[in-house]
């Protein structure tokens, strides 16, 4: 009987800690040199591609904070990540978050004292005005399980491997989102769609940049 009461007490205590306090066990994944280099490579590639596009007078501001991706949600849902900087370090809601200097990851949606939550481009609710390639063709990027650009005018010529970059006023202009991997169009439709290949794996992220200005 005493044992049962003891267990019940521990359950109540643990429930209180889990749901009523901000305590949690900090976990960081182990450093992986290969993944870091791969990410750096994609970032440099994006920088080179940006220089080839007609994006004039754009330079990423030096005002950004580097954060560790503290933990992704330990499940297969990729729409949010947590980073290890928050209000104390100067993070505010709606700030843009990038992988390296040139790859768009998402936007800050919740800020705590020392941690922040990012809504990523993999969120099914994510939508963003984008442009495609050197011709600066307009489109609408949609997040989710399959990331794609929709509402592309049918007569506009797009190709596999064309770069898709941000063109919405909420984000710095010209941040790379991905490259076209597949083009879908129907005979009857007015628009066509492009499926994107995102140049990073969210499960492999270690560090991100939060643009402060």
């Amino acid at each position, binding site marked *: 009987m005493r044992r049962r009461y003891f267990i019940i007490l521990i359950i109540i205590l643990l429930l209180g800690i889990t749901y009523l306090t901000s305590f949690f066990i900090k976990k960081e994944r182990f450093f992986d040199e290969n993944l870091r280099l791969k990410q750096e490579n994609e970032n440099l590639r994006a920088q080179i591609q940006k220089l080839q596009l007609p994006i004039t007078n754009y330079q990423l501001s030096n005002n950004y904070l580097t954060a560790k991706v503290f933990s992704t949600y330990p499940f*297969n849902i990729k729409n949010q990540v947590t980073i290890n900087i928050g209000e104390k370090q100067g993070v505010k809601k709606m700030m843009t978050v990038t992988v390296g200097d040139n790859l768009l990851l998402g936007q800050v949606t919740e800020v705590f004292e020392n941690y922040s939550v990012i809504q990523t481009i993999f969120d099914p609710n994510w939508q963003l005005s984008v442009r495609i390639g050197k011709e600066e063709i307009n489109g609408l990027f949609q997040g989710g399980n399959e990331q794609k650009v929709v509402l592309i005018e049918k007569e506009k010529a797009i190709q596999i491997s064309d770069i898709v970059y941000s063109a919405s006023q909420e984000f710095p202009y010209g941040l790379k989102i991905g490259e076209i991997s597949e083009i879908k169009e129907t005979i009857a439709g007015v628009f066509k769609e492009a499926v994107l290949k995102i140049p990073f794996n969210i499960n492999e992220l270690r560090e991100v940049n939060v643009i402060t200005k």
Partner: protein
Amino acid sequence: MRLLSLVLLICLLSFIQSLGFSIFGVKLNLALAAVIAASFFVANLWEGLLLVVLAALILKFAPGFESEILIFSLIGAGAILIKKYLPWHYFFSNLILIILGTFIFYLFLAANLILTTIFLKELVLNLIAGTLIFALLNFLWQNKIA
């Protein structure tokens, strides 16, 4: 001794999951599979709930309230409550509960992913993990299923 072993097992698997353990890029829900399998070896409801809240605390990844952790806790508690009402052999009940648990988890948190390969892959991996854990516990405590 049995409870302590189960506590250590749940803590270990939850911790492994929270570190981002994945197979072929898919993160299996080790903690859920372990809690459901372990529910057949606990002496009473309270021991089962203890395992659930321990796993929830270890999985918690950010300050404040997370709906994922609440859903996980409710599914784990639900499995413990209904397992004795299932008419099948415990081995099959374990599989059914893992399928239901994974489905309900996605239903509440990412329903749009249910018809994708991500859900299927995680489901298969959860079933494999749950089966192995159940088999291990059954081997350790043969004929002592609660």
